């Protein structure tokens, strides 16, 4: 990580501390010193520390986004590690999990090392790399998962591509089991989604666009659940998007299978109708596609109940040139890091659909649990890069989604009442591809602290 030296002590005073991992939701002070949470309590003395007055604000563990595309190496005009992690900081995230579909893909230990080295030099938040499941993301031969796990990969995924061959998925689960990392699958039966650009339903009928049936996702989710049962391997469903997927997950959970899932803010808050109401705005084009209202309904319920344990953005930045074209020719993806928190608060928390504690759990302890970021599970045989602060580097001592005393000082402060209009031109991400431009949202992050370093304050990235 780019952050060097010893951070100044910081007292975050009088905020509403929400730390679901410790069952805390109360007004408290948080003292950060030497890059760790040093005290948590009432009436703490500043004792020389800088003070951040947090009255009326939420003080939460640093948010973890377990699904982002940083595009480096290979597509730096869309995003790079510096811009992507600054976008994360702006959005309140202290840890991002970087998907393997770069060019070349992260499919061996040297690529994992390369991502970690680049992050050590340029990142302003923790970057945890994902390794590919198969060589070249081709879905054929297994990549060297053992090597990558040792180098620091926290999970395996061919995200962007489904693992279409059931035998390959079975082997990946069996072989990968040993390393204790989940296999994150982008579930989509490819023969059902050929040339499709949005959800199959009424609006695709009206717009004359080829639709992806919900069944394309559900078939592969069902298959993966069965393969988890067969192999005992850990499956994590990326960006769950349909009601049927939720039903399948509920069944898997009831059976006690090692299957987890994430959902994006996009799929929790927007529906396929938006493609129509924006007359084919290509910023609505995303994979999986914006789904029907009944799907959104089911996803929200699953999130509230814990059937879905994590919210992840699937931040997919693209250049304007990739989007400023006809709908079918536009790239899939939404630049989501900088709008996730205010969108979720505006659409889910303020209307009373999701409790604040639940939302924060799904953005902190939930992903930490899925990735095994709890105490003792990291580091995986990796030492901090030379020259960086002793406190954190690469994946070492990442805040595990909690404000436990002694843990890494990753903290996010959110002002639940702050209202602002989304202005993509002011994004830190290079990707301005959002369908939310111009929308007024309420509940923005105002402070992001990574390993004790203040990297964002009042929306401005300082690192």
């Amino acid at each position, binding site marked *: 990580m780019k952050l060097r030296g010893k951070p100044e002590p910081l007292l975050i005073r009088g905020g509403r501390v929400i730390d679901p991992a410790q069952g805390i939701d109360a007004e408290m002070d948080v003292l950060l010193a030497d890059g760790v949470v040093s005290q948590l309590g009432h009436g703490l003395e500043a004792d020389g520390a800088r003070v951040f007055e947090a009255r009326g604000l939420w003080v939460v563990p640093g948010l973890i986004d377990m699904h982002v595309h940083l595009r480096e190496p290979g597509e730096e005009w869309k995003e790079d590690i510096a811009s992507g992690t600054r976008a994360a900081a702006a959005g309140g995230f202290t840890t991002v999990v970087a998907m393997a579909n770069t060019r070349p893909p992260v499919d061996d230990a040297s690529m994992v090392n390369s991502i970690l080295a680049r992050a050590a030099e340029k990142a302003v938040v923790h970057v945890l790399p994902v390794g590919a499941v198969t060589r070249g993301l081709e879905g054929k031969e297994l990549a060297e998962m053992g090597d990558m796990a040792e180098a620091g990969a926290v999970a395996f995924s061919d995200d962007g591509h489904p693992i279409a061959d059931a035998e390959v998925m079975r082997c990946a689960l069996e072989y990968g089991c040993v390393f204790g990392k989940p296999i994150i699958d982008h579930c989509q039966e490819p023969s059902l989604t050929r040339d499709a650009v949005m959800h199959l339903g*009424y609006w*695709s*009928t009206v*717009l004359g*666009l080829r*639709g992806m049936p919900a069944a394309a996702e559900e078939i592969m989710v069902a298959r993966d659940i069965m393969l988890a049962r067969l192999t005992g391997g850990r499956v994590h469903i990326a960006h769950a998007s349909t009601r049927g997927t939720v039903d399948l997950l509920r069944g898997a959970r009831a059976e006690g299978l090692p299957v987890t899932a994430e959902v994006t803010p996009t799929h929790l808050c927007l529906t396929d109708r938006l493609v129509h109401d924006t007359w*084919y705005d290509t910023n609505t084009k995303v994979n999986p596609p914006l789904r029907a209202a009944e799907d959104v309904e089911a996803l929200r319920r699953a999130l509230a109940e814990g059937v879905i344990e994590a919210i992840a953005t699937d931040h997919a930045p693209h250049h304007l040139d990739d989007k400023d074209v*006809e709908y*079918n020719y536009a790239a899939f993806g939404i630049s989501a890091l900088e709008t996730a928190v205010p969108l979720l608060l505006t659409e889910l928390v303020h209307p009373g659909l999701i409790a604040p504690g639940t939302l924060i759990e799904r953005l902190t302890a939930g992903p930490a649990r899925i990735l095994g970021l709890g105490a003792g599970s990291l580091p995986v045989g990796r030492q901090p890069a030379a020259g960086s602060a002793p406190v954190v580097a690469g994946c070492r001592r990442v805040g595990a989604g909690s404000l436990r005393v002694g843990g890494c000082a990753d903290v996010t402060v959110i002002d639940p009442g702050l209202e602002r209009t989304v202005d993509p031109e002011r994004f830190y991400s290079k990707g301005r591809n959002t369908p939310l431009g111009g929308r007024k949202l309420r509940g923005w992050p105002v402070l992001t602290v990574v390993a004790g370093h203040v990297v964002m304050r009042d929306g401005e990235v300082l690192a």
Partner: protein
Amino acid sequence: MKLKSRDILALEEMPREDMELILDTASSMKEIIYRPIKKVPTLRGKTVVTLFYEASTRTRTSFELAAKYMSADTVSIATATSSVQKGETLKDTARTLRVMGSDCVIMRHPVSGSCHFLARVLDIPVINGGDGMHEHPTQGLLDMFTMREKKGRLEGLRVAIIGDIYHSRVARSNIWGLKKMGASVVVCGPATLLPPEIEKMGVEATTRVEEAVKDADVVMVLRLQLERQQRGLFPSAREYSRLWGITRERLNLAKPDALLMHPGPMNRGIEIASEVADSPQSTIEDQVTNGVAVRMAILYLLLGGGEEK
């Protein structure tokens, strides 16, 4: 009278008054087509560009003749021989045409929504000449014009649209237009060629052709695109023809004075039998003539012909 619409993109979003104004104006335009000297000076000095990314005979010709009959200059861009082949984006091509001084762009494009995209880029009127599987609004208008001309009304008509509804921009434009004008619509075809939830557009849907045709005032047959067979959406043209082809027997189930329509080009002997295509009930040639009249009306209304003092 002026149109509320700045562009002609989709009948879904076109107000009923605009449709009525276009149909009424087209009636007076039609007379010009039968004059010995088919030329009025209405659009002298205006330049109309047709930009077609897909093959077309009648739509492009129809637009060009409509413009020429009103003395506009026309330029047609065939994408096969243009800079599009060098990888130029639609946006850049459109802007190039604009800065050369064109007053209106008529576009056909294989991707749904492209005309909306073009209209966002350009500050001159855009007319949709067919965008992907979305809409073909001028076809919808000329079909309605033909029905109104022959039946004297649109309100209360029962219109059966038979064939590949899924991929048909003609069907979508007709559905929106006819619904707004008070007609009822039933769509029919093999289940693989009926898009999901189409009933929510306010139509009946059935796979049984006899049921669809029964008591119809208008039977509109769509062109079967034979390449759909390659994708496995139906097993053979032979079976399609046997189960959904419009024959004399099937047409007899409709009202005795029912109209038989087809947007062309036809696959004779597949979706439509020659006996009915060439029968007095067939309006297929009227549709072509009316297409010119409707497009004259649209160009006239959009290009400010109505504003001249």
